[in-house]
């Protein structure tokens, strides 16, 4: 990427070159790219672990690894995917790259802090990896670290906890930066309701990052204290309360799932209007549903604990609110569909991914409703059903949202174009593999196949095998998609400034954008999605 074609005008990629200029970059776009490369690396590592787990489960009994390895593997897979990949994910990559441009600013409010949080992130990520290979054996308590197990087991839990803590800190700083940026740096004339919807979703996300993360931070520290100093806040042997740990953990981790999905929702909200050449349908409802998700999302954490022995009152309270929080998601889905309706729809890869997002997110969301109802959750709690639910919604939602964003902003970021046919074929593999991989898990879950199971009853053989085959197809798709993107960073056709005829600010500047985005800060006089002369060649 430090090697642009010689004729290219100066832009953020080539105005300075050399490793050092990247490592000390305070430019939001460069930091976004740093995150992109780090996150992709970790994603691939954890995805390979997922594939290995599936291969292990292709048949009952020991196939390729021991139970201890399997347990460490799903823990590491979960920890990397959640804390290192999807929570920072879209916000850190595309939030960084696009947010300032989309609101007409030259950078985020605190560029140095931005770089700092990247390094905090990397420290946390490395700590997480180190916990695997350090002396002693790999942490094996799942990504949820439930006490008392995590307080007693003799593995590198402390390192893993510190990693999660550090990563949380990075997440807080990013959130803080974005909130201030949005409050203070909007271009003149860009009122709150003239702001595009991706920044809006980042705004809602940032508040969750800011206010929920510290709770889990202190909780994880308490587990560390419990392990090192033997003061039992949560371990009943020392007088602690294991269910209290679950409360504290989910007070953070439920809102965190909205940290994952809200930016993805924001991305597809940008994509639908552009590829339909039509204003977004229901701007205000989408804004308010983002805020509602962020707010109500704080009050439903207990739905992860229906079977933990909570009071009956809180079981129905949490169940009820869980259903309420589904409504804003419903509103969004309907608004997206209506945005396309009547438009001039161009099925390019970004839109393909965005539409898959709707489909997979809907399935994930509806199965969320099954989990939200107390009676049915009793049956499927901690079974493969839950695993399928969150893979559908995280991988199918946030993951496909990320791929959509990648294909959407790729020409802007690199000034080059990937191969569209290639992208479509890879999508086909991804989408097919995905459904084969996870759909059988819904059925097995209802039948009672518990999660975090190294081994299983022969009755589940069929479903497990189909699922493994799906994983392999998905694997091919992923390789295909990534190689397309990587290959064309340098070799793709030069992309125009506005290949999709988008109307938000990032499309009004050259690709790749110049170092400080705008020569003159634009003055905004109207809403973000006005298509005066739709380009429908």
């Amino acid at each position, binding site marked *: 990427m430090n090697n642009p074609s010689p004729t290219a005008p100066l832009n953020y990629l080539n105005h300075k070159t050399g490793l050092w200029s990247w490592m000390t970059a305070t430019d939001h776009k460069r930091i976004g790219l740093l995150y992109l490369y780090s996150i992709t690396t970790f994603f691939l590592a954890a995805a390979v672990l997922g594939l290995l787990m599936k291969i292990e489960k292709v048949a009952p009994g020991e196939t390729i690894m021991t139970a201890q390895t399997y347990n460490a593997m799903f823990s590491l897979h979960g920890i990397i995917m959640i804390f290192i990949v999807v929570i920072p994910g879209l916000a850190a990559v595309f939030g960084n790259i696009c947010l300032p441009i989309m609101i007409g600013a*030259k950078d985020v*409010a*605190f560029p140095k*802090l931005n770089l700092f949080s990247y390094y905090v992130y990397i420290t946390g990520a490395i700590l997480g990896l180190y916990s695997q290979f350090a002396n002693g054996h790999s942490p094996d308590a799942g990504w949820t670290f439930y006490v008392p197990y995590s307080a007693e087991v003799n593995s590198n839990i402390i390192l893993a906890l510190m990693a999660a803590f550090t990563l949380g800190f990075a997440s*807080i700083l990013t959130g*803080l*930066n974005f*909130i*201030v940026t949005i*409050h*203070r*740096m909007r271009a*003149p004339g860009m009122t709150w309701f003239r702001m595009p919807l991706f920044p809006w979703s980042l705004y809602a996300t940032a508040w969750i990052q*800011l*206010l*929920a*993360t*510290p*709770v*889990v*931070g*202190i*909780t994880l520290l*308490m587990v560390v*204290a419990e392990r*090192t*100093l*033997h*003061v*039992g*806040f949560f371990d009943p042997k*020392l*007088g*602690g*309360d294991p269910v*209290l740990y679950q*409360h*504290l953990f989910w*007070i953070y981790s439920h809102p965190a799932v909205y940290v994952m999905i809200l930016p993805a929702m924001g991305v597809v909200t940008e994509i639908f209007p552009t590829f339909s050449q039509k204003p977004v349908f229901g701007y205000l409802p989408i804004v308010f549903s983002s805020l509602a998700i962020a707010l109500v999302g704080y009050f439903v954490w207990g739905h992860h604990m229906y079977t933990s022995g909570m009071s009956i009152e809180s079981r129905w309270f949490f169940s009820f609110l869980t259903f309420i929080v589904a409504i804003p998601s419903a509103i969004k889905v309907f608004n997206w569909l209506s945005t396309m309706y009547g438009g001039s729809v161009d099925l390019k890869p970004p839109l393909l991914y965005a539409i898959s997002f709707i489909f997979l997110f809907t399935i994930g969301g509806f199965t969320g409703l099954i989990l939200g109802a107390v009676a049915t959750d009793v049956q499927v709690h901690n079974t493969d059903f839950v695993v399928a639910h969150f893979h559908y919604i995280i991988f199918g939602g946030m993951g496909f949202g990320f791929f959509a964003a990648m294909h959407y902003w790729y020409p802007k970021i690199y000034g080059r174009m990937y191969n569209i046919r290639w992208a479509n074929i890879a999508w086909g593999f991804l989408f097919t593999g995905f459904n084969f991989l996870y759909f059988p898990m819904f059925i097995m879950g209802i039948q009672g196949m518990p999660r975090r199971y190294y081994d299983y009853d022969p009755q589940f053989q069929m479903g497990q095998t189909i699922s493994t085959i799906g994983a392999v197809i998905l694997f091919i798709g992923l390789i295909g998609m990534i190689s397309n993107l990587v290959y064309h960073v340098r070799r793709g056709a030069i992309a125009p400034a506005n290949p999709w005829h988008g109307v938000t600010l990032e499309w009004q500047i050259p690709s790749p954008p110049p170092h400080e985005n705008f020569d*003159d*800060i634009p*003055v905004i006089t109207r809403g973000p999605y006005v298509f005066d002369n739709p380009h429908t060649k």
Partner: protein
Amino acid sequence: MSTTEHSEHSEYIDSETGKMGMWLFLFTEIFLFGGLFIVYSVMRAKYGEDFHHGALELNAFIGATNTVVLLVSSMTAAMSLTAIQKNQPKVAIALIFSTLLLAGVFMINKYFEYGHKFDLHLYPGSEVMRNLPKGEIMFFGLYFLMTGLHLFHVVVGGVLLTIVMLRVKSGKINSEHFLLLENGALYWHLVDLIWIFLFPLLYLIT
């Protein structure tokens, strides 16, 4: 327009922006302690009696003294802002210095308080502590964690204010640009705020 833009890329961050950043950071801190307060309240509901016994072991006098110390230091910090705004850097330095002195007093008090506990072999992980009733283990666990985390904030605040003081001295912070002082003071007030809750909750339980 270009003038405002210029200022954003200059050495000084627009003060409104910087202040908002600080406030957001304080929110995070509030939720960090918030997690501990949740644990505290649940455990207190569970082990009310033991918490009472635990609290009797604490030295309410030191606690009260430290409350006063922090309140006064909070005022001097607030006044230092007034001073810098009125363009009286000398006064500001003196006020920050007294804040730091008071922080020192706070820490010395804590030293004696913790020291006393250590003399009794009452510290996390000690044999004595492990043999207490479960509720008291919990109480002292929370006591050490909460006050310890608070103490850590006092130290950080102290370092921050020292930097501020040096910058006032060198003139980098002046009646035009005093964002860092304002933020330092805000942070210090937060340290005070948290103590306002810690004091009655830990030292004065009946």
